[in-house]
C-alpha cells in the first residue's frame, strides 16, 4: 500500500493540486494530511473543499496549529500566523469550521502514526527540528505498540530520523526522489516538509510517499506554479511578505 504524506498545505491550492497529481502518478492509494491545511495562503476555502472531499473518500487528516488558529483567531497580532488567521476565519464556511474543529490531533493507520507536530503532547505544537525533540516524539509513540513510523510536519523541512548502531536517533537529510529502505523492524520518524510553503530556498512543494509493502520511503519535491500562488495572495490583499516567500521558497 502506497500512502502519500502531505503536510502544511497552508491554503496553497496550486501546490496541493500539483502534489496530488504527482502522488497519483506515483501510484499513491491512500492520502494523509498532517495538519496546517490553512493559514498564510489565499485559498483556504478551495483547499478545504478539496481536502474534505478527499477525507470523505478515505484520506486521513489531523489538525495543525494554524487550523486551530483559524477556528479561534487571536484578538491581537503577536506572531506571523496571526495576521492571516482572522482573514482565514472569515473565509471559511461554518461547515468547514465545524469540520476543522472535529479533526483529531493524532491518527494511527496500521504501523503509521500521523501527527502535526510532536507525539509528545501534540497540542503543545513542539517543533521536531532536532534529535532531542524527535526522540521525545518517537518515545511518546510507544503507547501505540504497532507503530513503526511516525510522520509529522510543522517544521517545513524534510528530515528522516533513524536509530543508529547504539540505538540513539540520528538525523538524515534525504535526497528527493530516492526510495530509502525503511524496514519495519526499526522505528522511524520523518518530518515530510511543507506542500504549500517551502522555506529552504527552493520554491518546489514537498511531500513524501511511503510504500508500506516494500518498506520504502521517498521524499519528493514537486514543481508547481508558485508565481500564480503568490499572485493570488496579492489579489486577496494579504501581506506581500507571504507572496514573496512562495516565490523564493524562504
Amino acid at each position: 500500500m502506497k500512502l502519500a504524506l502531505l503536510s502544511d498545505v497552508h491554503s496553497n491550492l496550486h501546490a496541493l493540486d500539483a502534489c496530488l497529481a504527482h502522488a497519483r502518478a506515483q501510484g499513491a492509494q491512500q492520502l494523509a494530511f498532517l495538519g496546517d491545511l490553512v493559514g498564510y495562503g489565499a485559498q483556504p476555502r478551495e483547499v478545504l473543499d478539496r481536502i474534505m472531499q478527499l477525507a470523505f473518500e478515505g484520506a486521513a487528516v489531523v489538525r495543525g496549529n494554524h487550523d486551530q488558529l483559524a477556528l479561534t483567531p487571536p484578538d491581537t497580532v503577536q506572531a506571523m500566523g496571526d495576521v492571516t488567521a482572522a482573514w482565514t476565519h472569515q473565509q471559511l464556511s461554518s461547515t468547514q469550521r465545524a469540520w476543522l474543529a472535529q479533526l483529531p490531533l493524532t491518527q494511527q493507520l496500521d504501523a503509521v502514526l500521523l501527527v502535526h507536530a510532536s507525539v509528545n503532547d501534540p497540542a503543545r505544537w513542539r517543533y521536531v527540528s532536532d534529535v532531542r525533540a524527535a526522540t521525545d516524539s518517537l518515545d511518546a509513540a510507544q503507547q501505540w505498540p504497532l507503530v513503526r513510523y511516525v510522520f509529522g510536519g510543522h517544521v517545513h523541512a524534510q528530515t528522516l530520523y533513524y536509530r543508529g548502531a547504539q540505538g540513539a536517533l540520528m538525523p538524515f537529510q534525504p535526497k528527493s526522489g530516492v526510495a530509502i529502505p525503511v524496514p519495519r523492524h526499526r522505528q522511524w520518524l520523518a518530518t515530510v516538509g511543507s506542500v504549500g510553503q517551502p522555506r529552504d530556498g527552493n520554491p518546489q512543494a514537498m511531500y513524501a510517499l511511503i510504500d508500506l509493502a516494500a518498506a520504502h520511503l521517498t521524499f519528493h519535491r514537486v514543481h508547481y506554479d508558485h508565481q500564480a500562488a503568490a499572485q493570488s495572495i496579492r489579489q486577496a490583499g494579504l501581506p506581500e511578505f507571504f507572496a514573496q516567500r512562495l516565490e523564493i521558497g524562504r
Partner: protein
Amino acid sequence: MKLLENGAVLDGFAIDECMHSGGMAHIYRVSYAQGGHDPGFALAMKVPRMASGDGAENIVSFEVECHILQVLTGRYVPRFVAAGDLQRVPYLVMEYVRGRTLQHWLDLPGALPSPVIVRLACAMAHAAHALHQQNTVHLDLKPANVLFRDVPQPEGSNPQTSFGDAVLLDFGLSHHAHYPDLLAEQLRKAVGSPGWISPEQVVGVRGDPRSDIFAIGVMLYQMCTGRLPFGTPNTPAGLRQRLWVDPVPPRKHRPDLPEWLQEVALRCLEPEAAKRYPSAAHLAFDLSHPEQVHVTARGTNTQATPFSTHFKRWIKAAGMHYQPSPMPAEQIAVVPIVLVAIPYQDASDATLYSLRQAVARSLGSRPGARLACVTVIPSSLSSTTVEARSETHLHRRYLAQLHQWAQPLDHPGHQTSCHVIESGDVAQALLDYAVGNHVNVIVMGAATHGLKMQRFIATVPIKVAMDAPCTVILVKQALPFEQLGANDQDPD
C-alpha cells in the same frame, strides 16, 4: 542460523553445497528450484550467522549489504537477485562470479612481478571508481573482498597473469550517501578491518571515497612487499598510529621495485586523505601511464620516516575528529580529469589560446584536477624507413609541442600529462581515451578538425560530442586576437 542442508529449498531456491563458512555468514551455491526461470548466470546465497550470541553489528551489516547491493549496477559488483525478509529468514541471493580473490596472488610463492601488480591494482581502481560514481564507498576493501573474474585461458598462457575485471564483494560495512547510515553512531568508532582500514575510518569518518583508495594502497603495498604496511593492530591506540605514521618505503623491502610504483603506493597511503589521489580514476590513470608519474622523494626514498616527523604529525593527529563527507559523486566531480585535444597541425594561435583559456576554466580552483593533453596523429605519418619520421621521433616531436602548449597552465595543484596517439580515426581515438581513463570533461576546438565540412559530414567535434561519456566543451577562438584586428580567422 544452522547450516542449511544440501537439497533443501528456501523461498524457491534449491540449496546446493556450502562453498564458504565465514565468521559472518555461510555462502551456498544455489539454483532456482523446479519451475524457476534460468537467470543466465550461476547463483550464490549468503546467509548470515545469526544464532544467539552473535553480535547485533553482524545483523546490521547484513541489512546494510541488502540495501546497497540492490541498487548497485555494473560489471564490478555481483548482480543482485533476491533478499529474504530479515525478520523471517534472512538471506541474499546474488550472481556467483567465477574468479579468484586477490588473496590467491598474495599466497603465490615468490614476489609478484610488477607488471602483474600494476594490472591487479589498476583493475581494483576501476572497480572502486565505478562504485564511487554510484555514491557508494566500500569501506572494507581487502584481499578477500576483491575477486578477479576468470577469463578464457589461451593455450600455454600463464594463469597468474590472465584475469578479468575486479569484482567487489561484501558491502556489509559500506556507505551509500543517499541512505541513512545504519552503522553510524554518536560515539563514533572504527568500523573496518584492522589491516586495511583508513585513518579517517579509525576516527569514525564514513563515506569518503578516498578511504577506499587507502585500502587499495594497503593491498598494493602487500603485493609489492608481502607485508602489511601497518600490521594488524587490535587495540584502538594501535589503529590510531596510521594517523601519523608513514609505512616503511616498499623499496627498502624490495629494491628492484620501480620508483614510480612506490610513489603511487605511498600516495594512496598518505595519512591525510587530501594528500592521496582525489579519486580512484586518478589512481587508475597513474597506474596505466607509469611514464607520466611525477616521482618525488616519496618514490625514491628507501629510509623510514624520522621520529621527529612522526612526532609532529602525532600532535596534529591528536585533534583529528569526525567530519561529515560530501557525496562521493560530487567529491569526484570537483577534481576532474580534463582531456584537451590539440590538433597536431594547422592550429592558429587564436585557437591554441582559446583552448588554453577553456582548459584553465575547466580545471577549476580545487587542487587535484588532472589535465591530459592529447594529440592524435594519423598512422600514415610515421615511417619505419625514414629516420625523421620514425615513430619515436614523431612522438618526441609532438610531445614537445604539447608540453610547450601546456606550459602556461602549469600549476602546483594540478597534474599535467601529454600523450600522442596514432590513429586513423581521430574521434574514436579521443572517445576511447576518454572512456578508458574516466575523463570528466573533453575540451576541443570547434573549428579544428574541419568545421567547414560540418554541414555535409559528421566532423570530429560533432562525433565526439555525440558519443562522449562526459561533458564536451567545443571552444571557439576568441580574444585577444579579434581586438588586434586580425581578420584572417575562420568565419565561425
